[in-house]
């Protein structure tokens, strides 16, 4: 499912402790704090490894997340907007990450541009409730998906690099 580098990266993300979803008004703020801590740690870790590849931010109550991810292919940078809601069943179930601009461009997607994760993801997530959080979702869900799909979409000419000055390296 994931390469050695991903495995190593995941093993360094702090595990979360608070088992609470957004409907749990008393414990959710604590969980949210842990989510941010793990995400910040993961982003710093990526930067240190010269592999910075996403940013995420949430609305004030932490139920809706938006951000950007980028993918370097043959020295060119491709950037995509990402979004997801925290389901009421979180953290028992992982959020469904969407890359809306790729909706309809690949079969490895559900309606609304939600990425289709591998068979390994659900069992892995289930076994690690509540220790896995959004950083793990990025590392084990979105990361591997981009690594497989984006080169394929580029080679088919479906994804083209937009000439947005600052997105060039």
């Amino acid at each position, binding site marked *: *499912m*994931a390469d050695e580098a991903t*495995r190593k990266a*995941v*093993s360094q993300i702090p*595990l979360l*402790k608070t*088992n609470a979803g*957004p*409907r749990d008004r008393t414990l959710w703020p604590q969980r949210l704090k842990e989510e941010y801590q793990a995400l910040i740690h993961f982003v710093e870790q990526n930067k240190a490894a010269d592999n910075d590849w996403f940013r995420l931010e949430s609305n004030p109550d932490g*139920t809706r997340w938006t951000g950007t991810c980028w993918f370097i292919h043959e020295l060119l940078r491709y950037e995509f907007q990402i979004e997801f*809601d*925290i*389901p*009421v*069943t979180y953290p*028992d*179930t992982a959020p*469904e990450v969407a890359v809306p601009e790729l909706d309809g461009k690949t*079969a*490895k*997607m*559900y*309606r609304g541009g939600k990425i*289709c994760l*591998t*068979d*390994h993801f*659900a*069992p*892995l997530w*289930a*076994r*690690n*409730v*509540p*220790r896995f959080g959004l950083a793990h979702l990025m590392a084990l869900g979105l990361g591997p998906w981009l690594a497989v799909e984006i080169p394929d979409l580029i080679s088919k000419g479906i994804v083209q690099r937009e000439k947005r000055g600052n997105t060039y390296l």
Partner: protein
Amino acid sequence: MATVEELKLRVRELENELIKCKQKQCAMEDAQSLELHRPKIEKMSAEVVDSNPYSRLMALKRMGIVDDYEKIRTFAVAVVGVGGVGSVTAEMLTRCGIGKLLLFDYDKVELANMNRLFFQPHQAGLSKVEAAEHTLRNINPDVSFETHNYNITTMENFTHFMDRIRHGGMEEGKPVDLVLSCVDNFEARMAINKACNELGQIWMESGVSENAVSGHIQLIIPGETACFACAPPLVVAANIDEKTLKREGVCAASLPTTMGVVAGILVQNVLKYLLKFGTVSYYLGYNAMQDFFPTMAMKANPQCNDRHCREQQEEYKKREAECPKVEVVQEEEEVVHEDNEWGIELVSEVTDAELQAATGDRPELPEGITVAYTIPAEVRVAQHITASQVLTSFYHRDLQMHLWFDK
């Protein structure tokens, strides 16, 4: 050659003509639909005349299958997910003359759905609930409909969803009689499970595998039978060699046949449950490759992750204690396995031999049914666990994942 001005004028003329055509067509369709719409029927009649849509259903009474078929009009059923299974389920219930249907879905009809039943190409682009209501109302104007075009798993929608389950019954303010899960993803199933556990709402789950060749239905009575979170998702083994199953490049396959069969066994179970005839199935699987229909029943798991499931189990115990069974039922000895890491007790629907045959780390399940994956027992017991502990008791296919936690 025509000038730009001339062309503009011509475009305007054609546009006006188009509007007129559209208006004419709409008026015609309205008149037609008025003609086609039969008036509402106040009371179901058993009279066998070609104008009575209920005569063949009421015949069930005469034949002694159902005691009181008219009772169907007193029930409200919520159908969550109006896709390949949900739409057909809703149509069957509509044709059976159900009292009220509440439809939940956030999706739109797409041409990619046309390999399934119910929706038609001209409905592409419409919301599924809106398109479904239109078709179903045409089929049977006696049914009342309530539609909700949203994703039930997000915070605000979930609150509204729970409220409609609790108050959207035949009589406003009363709960619905049954919730049917016809969704296609784990998150939505877990959300329905959560809502029903909190409300103590009886529901039925249905599903078709992503390879389109197996499916299942399951009756969930909170506190009594296993809820959706009591065990990892149950799957009907399709006996396909994992190595030959190619998953690259696609998310899911679907067949109108499998979906139709699953909708059929689901609604059959609904009718039996609501109208009290035959035996209601707790779990019925469908393996399309071998034409095998495994059945079983599973008690709720005292260690279920869902707090409300555990609370419902306490309530159920109290209820059971309060009303001791009058009948003397010849009960078979319950089969409880010592190494049962799930604490799942199978109600005696399978033989000892069948139970013995299913071995390994998985919970004991009858032939043909398995879990999508297993979770090490200690993970569920301990909240805070060290990374090294996670390494134990995975099953072989996931050995490679262990590496992730090595320090």
